[in-house]
């Protein structure tokens, strides 16, 4: 057993962090709220191998594991990189052009009645997921209504009155994989959000002075920061465990480890977002400070690829099964 990042996994994280800092600085990210997805930067992500990370080399991918993907998505979350990152990564190898960034892929769980869909107008293809399999539909064929003011300004949403059947691109097994991997990748993004919010709050607590000293010296603020990093480190362990297990290097069922990660991720990301707002005081409630962007993205991801309440209910049923005589 060795549950530390390898040197190469650390180098990978540093490399992606450098890319994000250089090309997804906060001004570039915020500009997408008005201008839509920056396709040039999206293609740069693709060229770096983000979307094809887990695709085999034979299929033109990088051929790395889900553990590496988790490390990469953590960095993307930390810098608030927008767009349907998870869906496009999952679609690599299933939807032509996803891996190379030329086709942007959004996804949604099939619902009866109207479906609210993130990123739809930024995407070229929508993948619809249900228990029976995966279906794809070209976005221009959909009658989609945009919402003027999305909860997260960097996650635009559209409503489609009724989802079409679409073209079958994967069976029930493919849908199960899609959900499982998507849940882990979303949890990794949430880990990144929790880290980003914590870093922002801690930096502010060191710099902002009241009563003659940095507010981070006061236990009321210091302890809130300690709670934030505590959530981060517990979540990090859960996300990495899920990713390692998806690679076949774990000791538990993948479904369980991924559910654990997603449950913790939804809670930790939202709580760290709220704490980040609180530590910034009045500035935390302004559009200018990034605190709200971390919180809003956390709320968006909470609803994607399995919500915490449903997953917790499933774990409880398993727990009762195991505890039975």
């Amino acid at each position, binding site marked *: *057993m*060795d*549950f*530390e*990042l*390898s040197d*190469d*996994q650390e*180098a990978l994280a*540093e*490399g992606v962090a450098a890319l994000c800092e250089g090309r997804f600085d906060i001004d570039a990210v915020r500009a997408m709220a008005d201008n839509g997805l920056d396709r040039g930067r999206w293609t740069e992500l693709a060229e*770096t191998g983000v979307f094809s*990370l887990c695709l085999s080399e034979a299929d033109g991918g990088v*051929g*790395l*594991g889900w*553990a590496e993907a988790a490390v990469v998505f953590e960095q993307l979350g930390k810098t608030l990189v927008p767009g349907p990152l998870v869906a496009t990564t999952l679609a690599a190898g299933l939807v032509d052009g996803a891996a190379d960034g030329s086709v942007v892929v959004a996804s949604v769980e099939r619902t009866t009645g109207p479906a609210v869909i993130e990123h739809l107008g930024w995407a070229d293809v929508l993948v619809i997921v249900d228990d029976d399999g995966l279906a794809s539909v070209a976005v221009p064929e959909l009658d989609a209504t945009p919402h003027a003011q999305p909860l997260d300004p960097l996650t635009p949403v559209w409503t489609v009155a009724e989802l079409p059947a679409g073209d079958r691109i994967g069976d029930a097994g493919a849908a199960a994989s899609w959900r499982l991997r998507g849940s882990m990748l979303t949890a990794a993004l949430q880990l990144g959000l929790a880290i980003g919010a914590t870093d922002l709050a*801690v930096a502010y*607590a*060191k710099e902002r002075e009241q009563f003659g*000293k*940095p507010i981070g*010296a006061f236990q009321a603020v*210091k*302890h809130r*920061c*300690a709670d934030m*990093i*505590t959530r981060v*480190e*517990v*979540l*990090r*362990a*859960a996300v*990495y*465990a899920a*990713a*390692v*297990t998806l*690679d076949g*290097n*774990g*000791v*538990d069922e993948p479904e369980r480890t991924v559910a*654990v990660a997603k*449950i*913790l991720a939804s809670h930790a990301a939202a709580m760290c977002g709220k704490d980040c707002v609180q530590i910034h005081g009045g500035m935390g409630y302004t559009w200018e400070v990034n605190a709200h962007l971390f919180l809003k993205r956390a709320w968006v991801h909470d609803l994607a690829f399995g919500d*915490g309440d449903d*997953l*917790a*209910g499933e*774990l*409880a*049923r398993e*727990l*009762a099964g*195991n*505890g*039975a005589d």
Partner: protein
Amino acid sequence: MRRAVGDALSLPRAAYDRRPMDLRYTEEEEHFRDELRSWLASVLHDVPPVPDDHTDLVARRAYDTAWQAQLHDAGYAGIHWPAEFGGRGSTPTEHLIFLEETERAGAPYVGVNFVGQLHAGPTLIAEATDDQRSTHLAPILKGEHVWCQGFSEPGSGSDLASLSTRAVDDGDHYVVTGQKIWTSFAQVADYCELLVRTDPDARKHAGITWLIMPMDLDGIEIRPIDTALGSGEFAEMFLDEVRIPKINRVGDENDGWRVTNVTFSFERGTAFISEVISTQRLLADLAAVAQKVTRSSGTAWDDAGIRRELGRLDAELDALWSLTKRNVSQAQRTGMVGPGGSVFKLAYADVRKRMADLAERILGRAGLAIGESMDLSDLDHVGERLYTLTLTIAAGTSEIQRNIIGERLLGLPRER
């Protein structure tokens, strides 16, 4: 050195160092586990149940030390102690496996041997003279000597370095006078690891000395303190001109604070493994209890809120088990855990307290008596609920843990 992104991502597979994170155990580790399991299976059916009376510390000592002797004879005593001092010299991962398997098998807990095994012993290994080591280490491993800890004082809790128990130089002895508190199991201990003030004029951290105090010396009075749970392992200790030979000093005079902190370098992320495993068992049992407790309609289990909280706690315990493995892996690679231990303790205490609240919700009026199952369970969920109160207090309060995390991990400025 920061590598270019392209390099990091487009390395050919062969060149990529394939030692990524891996939660699976090696063949050697599995072999260690199998051997341990067989041994536990062969001995545990002859181990009697834990003595009923929590207040009978003599019986408790006899029980815990008998198990320690059994561990010793089988080669499992001092699992993490270096082999040259009689330990097994196991890796942190084997230590994890040992604690996991003994707890799953229902083996006795370390109990009265806690201070000797996990605190005084490691300190002696690191800092004591050869004579002191040969006198004390083997008897700790064999269950012959029980140790207690004389650190906290009524006026020195979280601010331990302010301690005022005075040691006056008297030739080849120190004459020690003062009061210690939370000296658990002092009533049945043979030795005490004692912190005393040898230089009252020095800065508070610089005037402390670490002594081995035999508990049969004149001038030691022990008074039990009853806990809120009603158990009797707590004690306070009054020292009235106790003459401790100077040869019992560990490390230099006035260097006791450093000596005390050396023990932390022995921490390998394993401190709460038994607790996490037993907590998982408690939670599974709580799920079963929820299905038995009747409500005005149906059972407690029919309440979706209760089910979700059970599931969330299950998830958090699972994550804490993963965090344990991260801390143990870090210890295996670097020899240290660092503030990761504080993070773990803080999160674990929170989970346990929320679980205690959930137990209260589930049990309803069956939660009005301690130590009785009321036909719902073999486990004492009410006693556990009280026990969880200690988790945010003992071994550094959660407030102190948050200071440590805030200042050492996050680099926030000190308040003082």
